[in-house]
């Protein structure tokens, strides 16, 4: 990926940070985007310390002007855009079944997880067409492929991300942009640590959902994202790849 440029949203931690580092390790220059600018800067520092090139961008993916500015930053700083990992997402309230889910919670999760991915595609694609080709991976989830209880905006938007991925993939395949999704299972990130809240019972329950017998590591998701962006995946279009230790095989 020498000479190539990647955007990673949700890059302040977890899967986003691991993927930004993996892109940099593969030789790409990276724009690390997140609402959490402190976390973003830390990711950029880690990339630079490892000898890579990166800049950060304080970005709210639910804001069209922010996303437009993010893509402009990539093009202005590094001259092009080749890869994007549209990963920023929030889980929203948990433990609230549909009738208890507030509309404010619904709107907030939809804005980030669903509209955010649409806006990223909308502004990244023209920059990639300008660069000649591109590859995009959107973060869905194992609950983008199956139901779950207590956090309907998250489950619904992660299903929606797969729809966005498939439709956009069809539209741009012929024009040299490959678009795929990755569906992580339970991965040890700040988001999941937050859900666990230090409760060993919740941790055991989440781990029990993984046939492989453990949670995923952010680096394991990152490896799939970088592979999907690489030329080795040149015939892979519109695919939602599960990286979940077998979770969706037998929920």
């Amino acid at each position, binding site marked *: 990926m020498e000479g190539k440029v990647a955007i990673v949203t949700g890059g302040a931690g977890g899967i986003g940070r691991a993927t930004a580092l993996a892109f940099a390790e593969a030789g790409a220059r990276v724009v690390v985007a997140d609402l959490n600018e402190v976390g973003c800067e830390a990711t950029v520092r880690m990339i630079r310390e490892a000898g890579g090139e990166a800049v950060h961008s304080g970005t709210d993916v639910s804001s069209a002007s922010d996303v437009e500015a993010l893509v402009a930053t990539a093009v202005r700083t590094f001259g092009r855009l080749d890869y994007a990992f549209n990963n920023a997402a929030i889980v929203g309230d948990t433990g609230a079944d549909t009738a208890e889910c507030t509309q404010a919670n619904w709107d907030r999760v939809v804005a980030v997880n669903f509209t955010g991915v649409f806006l990223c595609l909308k502004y990244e694609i023209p920059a990639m067409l300008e660069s000649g080709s591109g590859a995009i991976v959107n973060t869905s989830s194992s609950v983008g492929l199956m139901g779950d209880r207590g956090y309907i905006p998250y489950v619904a938007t992660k299903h929606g991300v797969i729809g966005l991925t498939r439709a956009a993939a069809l539209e741009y*395949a012929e024009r040299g942009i490959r678009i795929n999704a990755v569906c992580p299972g339970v991965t040890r990130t700040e988001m999941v640590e937050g859900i666990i809240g230090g409760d060993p019972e919740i941790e055991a329950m989440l781990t029990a959902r993984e046939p492989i017998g453990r949670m995923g590591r952010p680096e394991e998701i990152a490896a*799939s994202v970088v592979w999907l962006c690489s030329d080795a995946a*040149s015939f892979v279009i519109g695919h939602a*790849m599960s990286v979940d230790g077998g979770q969706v*095989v037998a929920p």
Partner: protein
Amino acid sequence: MPRFDGKAVLVTGAAQGMGRAIAERFVEEGGAVVLFDLDGELVEKTASELSAKGKTVAVTGDVSKREDVRRAVETCVEQFGSIDVLAAQAGIGDLCPLLEIEDARWDRMLAINLTGVFLSVQEAGLAMAKAGKGGAMVVTSSTNAFYVEQHTAHYSATKGGVLTFVRNAALDLAEYGIRINTVCPGIIRTRLGLPLIEDPVAGPEYLKRVPLRRYGEPVEIANAILFLASDEASYVTGEDLVVDGGTTLGVVLEIPDGSIPGELAS
């Protein structure tokens, strides 16, 4: 560092086409490869050609016969000290209208495409479990597993069976540290694909259904299989990786921009 340095790999159906490409890519990335195929002469030739790049051994046999599959696994362990990776690629294709499929034709399809996968996965799984070091398996299914075509009832049934078999196998093998996944190729430039690809009418016609506007190359399937077999995919199991240029995503209509009134388009 090559991803398969020090790894022993068994590739079934390795004499030509995708199987050969898979074996070649494993050898290129440091793997020691047992090439297994029914066509003894051709598999010997392929193994000998690939031996210029690394360690290879040819085994002649029938994937639908347990003793043959066992011999291939044993050869891998004897020659290379272990079996770390299985790429179960051996398969046949056929076109026949459902009402004309005779028992022998059905039986042969099931024997090679489905029983062959069962035997390969079980024999390799037994050896991996015995060694206790885990392992990775990749089985070639097809987009026909979920996106069927006319006159392929027998073929599609086996490929659908393979998909379901592998999902179950992922659960059963997880406790041994063995990951297993499928790759589902679309139309690929191989002996199986060429009759369609080179047909002057059907070839270009089918291509209209491929969003990427080209057929796949064997190495593109091989690359997907290597990824799934590698440590990069350490958390991927039970997955069906579709490698089809977007063919099964949806219908690609050839409509000039703006020719559908908005109310119909929505």
